[in-house]
């Protein structure tokens, strides 16, 4: 399938979609479907839920296009819809004991670095594309949902701190503290794969 063309200005596409031009909406879908699917998969960690989220998000966006004001980006708007749907899915899965997004977890214990080792100069190059994706996905999956959702929005989907707080319905300080913990936990995990082999691993001890 051809890559979505970027020749149309986004504002123009939205105006056309609002005016009833369905091909314009399909073009918006092509632009963002991959990112929305990735987001849903990363937050829910479940294939079936991710598919439902993706479908619901775009159908809702289409049905509520009239209420989209255009003062935020379309992407941020549809991300917010997809995050809502994803969180609902997470909460429905009662078996997951860590779904509360309001949960207070803080002793500072989890911030003390355990693995302190330099990485290979180009650690990604040691793995095939598929292996690397597997390592990155598994590492994100290992995070508790409250840390995972913040990391996904800030560092994978590139939302601002404010946009992340708004999408998740949490405070800005909560975004910052959860992001830091998520980053540090991922760093620990990735260090196991990317640390410099041979040579002087304990160079700094």
């Amino acid at each position, binding site marked *: 399938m051809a890559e979505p063309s970027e020749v149309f200005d986004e504002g123009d596409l939205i105006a056309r979609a609002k005016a*009833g031009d*369905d091909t314009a*909406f*399909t073009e918006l*879908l092509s632009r963002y*479907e*991959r*990112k929305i*699917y*990735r987001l849903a998969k990363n937050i829910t960690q479940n294939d079936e839920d991710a*598919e439902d989220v*993706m*479908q619901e998000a*775009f*159908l809702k966006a*289409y*049905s509520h296009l009239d209420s989209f004001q255009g003062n935020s980006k379309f992407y941020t708007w549809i991300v917010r819809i997809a995050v809502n749907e994803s969180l609902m899915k997470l909460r429905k899965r009662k078996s997951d004991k860590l779904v509360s997004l309001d949960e207070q977890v803080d002793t*500072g214990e989890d*911030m003390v*670095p355990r693995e*302190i*080792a*330099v*990485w290979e100069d180009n*650690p*990604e190059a040691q793995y095939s594309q598929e292996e*690397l*994706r597997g390592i*990155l996905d598994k590492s*994100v999956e290992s995070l508790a949902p409250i840390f995972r959702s913040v*990391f996904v929005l800030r*560092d*994978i989907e*590139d939302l601002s701190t404010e946009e992340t707080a708004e999408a998740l319905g949490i405070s800005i300080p909560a975004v*910052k503290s959860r*992001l*830091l913990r998520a*980053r*540090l936990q*991922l*760093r620990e995990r*990735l*260090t196991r794969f*990317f640390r410099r082999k041979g040579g002087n691993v304990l*160079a*700094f001890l």
Partner: protein
Amino acid sequence: MLSCKDFLKELSEYLDASATPANKAELDQHLKQCPDCWVVADTTKKTIQVYRGTEPRAVPDSLRLRLLAALEARMKARRTQ
């Protein structure tokens, strides 16, 4: 001098370049003197970079077709309103 614990608390701001200039100077100073924190900062920065650099996978065809069919039904309904 800043303790390692204080440095870690500010690590995100430091990496996101959102620390105030005074704060940044203090953090830079700590990094020059603390090899452990230097490694943690460097590998955390690379952690963020490796995730940012990953392209999203293609959406499975079956899902895309299902979504397009559901959307088409809504579009039709809208046109006949």
